[in-house]
């Protein structure tokens, strides 16, 4: 994590080799927070209460105007963004063609559902496998070049796929109409994804669809956390900082970059497959370059090189796109005084402004701002700690 250096002085090593941690609450909290179980546990709790807060909680949900299906969509894009940040934030590679893996997996899952089996798990496995293979090939070709050339190559390959599915492959993909007629079968043959969960779980989490997506989202976060804290994650960060130095150290930079690309493609594939399951439909749009652009904006908005930032970014983006765009009149809160009519139609403009402000005020994104704030609080609470 980005603020690990703040713990530098919190433990000292004695001659006997035992670590004497100073016993302040702050230091202990740091240790706990670093542990994987805690990260995954907190993620699971947040994911579990999110739909209730967003769409059913008193007052909050009335202000937010959230709804269950959007909560699911936010998690799906969140998975995509977490994987994208592995590439952009941690390895330092800006792909502008991730729509290829998102849309490719969505189509693969949809086609498998229509021809082989519409079991949600089969669809996720098939979509992800397709995305991984595709990422392998496109990464192999695109990573021959660095910097802007890499970005342009990924963009070009993704657009090739878009035009392929628009016309030449229309017999498979449904062309301009998108892929229709997908009816997802119940999970494990028993649980209808659209039906509500029983009792308290139903109030809290909502339907089986959200539970299914939520479990996969938590697993994805756990996987990303594990990768980032493994030697692989370390090498990714080393490459981001200085590619040539990493080579001098003796690392096969190209191979690691390809690996980062494939892993991030796999996350996009999981998310794309879930998108098909969620919507029972694959729009041609899902391969278009705007999707690649959206994931870049979400990730940067939330904060690159952080695990959770991109999820926040995805949430904010989708919130503006789906909720704010539906607002008819902007009023002064708790009054009827209208400030702007047809407010929702300006949602693109609003999103642009939000993006501008975030980049201007907090270049490290929302999560970066949160981290800075936390560091400030810790400094005030912890006295002499740097």
């Amino acid at each position: 994590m980005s603020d690990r250096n703040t713990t530098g002085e919190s433990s000292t090593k004695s001659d006997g080799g035992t670590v004497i941690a100073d016993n302040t609450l702050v230091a202990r909290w740091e240790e706990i927070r670093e542990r994987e179980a805690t990260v995954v546990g907190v993620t699971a709790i947040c994911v579990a209460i999110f739909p209730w807060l967003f769409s059913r909680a008193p007052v909050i949900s009335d202000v937010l105007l959230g709804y269950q299906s959007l909560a699911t969509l936010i998690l799906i894009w969140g998975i995509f963004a977490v994987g994208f940040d592995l590439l952009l934030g941690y390895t330092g590679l800006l792909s502008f063609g991730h729509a290829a893996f998102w849309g490719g997996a969505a189509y693969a899952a949809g086609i498998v559902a229509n021809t082989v089996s519409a079991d949600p798990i089969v669809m996720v496995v098939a979509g992800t496998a397709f995305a991984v293979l595709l990422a392998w090939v496109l990464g192999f070709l695109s990573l021959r070049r660095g910097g802007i050339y890499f970005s342009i190559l990924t963009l070009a390959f993704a657009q090739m796929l878009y035009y392929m599915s628009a016309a030449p492959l229309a017999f498979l993909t449904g062309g301009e109409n998108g892929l229709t007629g997908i009816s997802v079968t119940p999970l494990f043959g028993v649980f209808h994804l659209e039906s509500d969960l029983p009792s308290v779980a139903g109030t809290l989490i909502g339907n089986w669809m959200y539970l299914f997506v939520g479990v996969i989202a938590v697993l994805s976060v756990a996987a990303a956390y594990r990768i980032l804290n493994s030697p692989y994650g370390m090498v990714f960060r080393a490459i981001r900082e200085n590619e040539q130095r990493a080579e001098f150290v003796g690392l096969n930079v190209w191979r690691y970059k390809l690996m980062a690309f494939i892993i991030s493609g796999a996350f996009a594939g999981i998310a794309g497959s879930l998108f098909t399951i969620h919507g029972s439909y694959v729009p041609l749009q899902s391969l278009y370059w705007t999707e690649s652009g959206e994931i870049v904006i979400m990730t940067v908005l939330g904060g690159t090189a952080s695990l959770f930032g991109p999820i926040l970014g995805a949430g904010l983006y989708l919130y503006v796109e789906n909720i704010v765009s539906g607002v008819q009149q902007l009023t002064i809160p708790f009054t009827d005084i209208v400030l702007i009519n047809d407010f929702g139609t300006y949602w693109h403009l609003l999103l642009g402004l939000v993006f501008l402000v975030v980049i201007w005020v907090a270049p490290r994104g929302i999560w970066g701002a949160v981290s800075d704030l936390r560091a400030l609080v810790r400094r005030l609470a912890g006295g002499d700690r740097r």
Partner: protein
Amino acid sequence: MSLLELDDVNAYYGESHILRGVTMNVEEGEICALLGRNGAGKTTTLRSIAGATPPNVRSGTVSFKGEDVTGKPAEDVSAGGISLVPEERRVFPNLTVAENLHLAEVVNNKSNTWGRSLTFEHEGMSTEDVYAQFPRLDERRDQQAGTLSGGEQQMLAIARALKQNTDLLLLDEPYEGLAPKIIEDVEDAVQRISEDGTTILLVEQNAAAAIKLADRAYVVDQGQIVFDGTAEELREDEATRERYLGV
């Protein structure tokens, strides 16, 4: 057979001919200094050895332990036992000290598991040994490397190189930009490493400091070797020192 042999190496940056037939060798166990003015070709020589591009080595051979390594990619040369500590910002600033050191293990695993039939005279140091050698780094394990002082960063870069399976350590201007007191610390470290048996090729502009440690020295000027002898001989050869080193 010398540990490292350069035979008539001609290296180019684009069309400019930088190294003009450099021939030199480094014997096992010694500290060899490569001296010369700014732009004489010192760093180019090191980069040619380490497999960095540019420069392009168009003719001549670089051989390490008798094996031709000319034109091999940098990562393979490094995994094969030559560690380069490049000049200036030598570490990964946003990785912690411990992570910087751990990178060496990743490389060691690679050279151990990829079935390369490599034998190393000097297995990489263990983490404990490294921290024992460099207590300053031990104190700062969890600190980001970019927040270390210049001298500490240099120590860290050397420590990382030592943790790797290293038979030849290439040091590019290790004293550059360091205060005299810190230079002494780095000198001590280099001396200790040498006593442990690692061969060192030391590239320096600071000739006086380099000669102090070195067994033998080469002087390079305009891409050619103009002096080849023991450190003692160079110390006494005032003409060469004045003409090519300005000291």
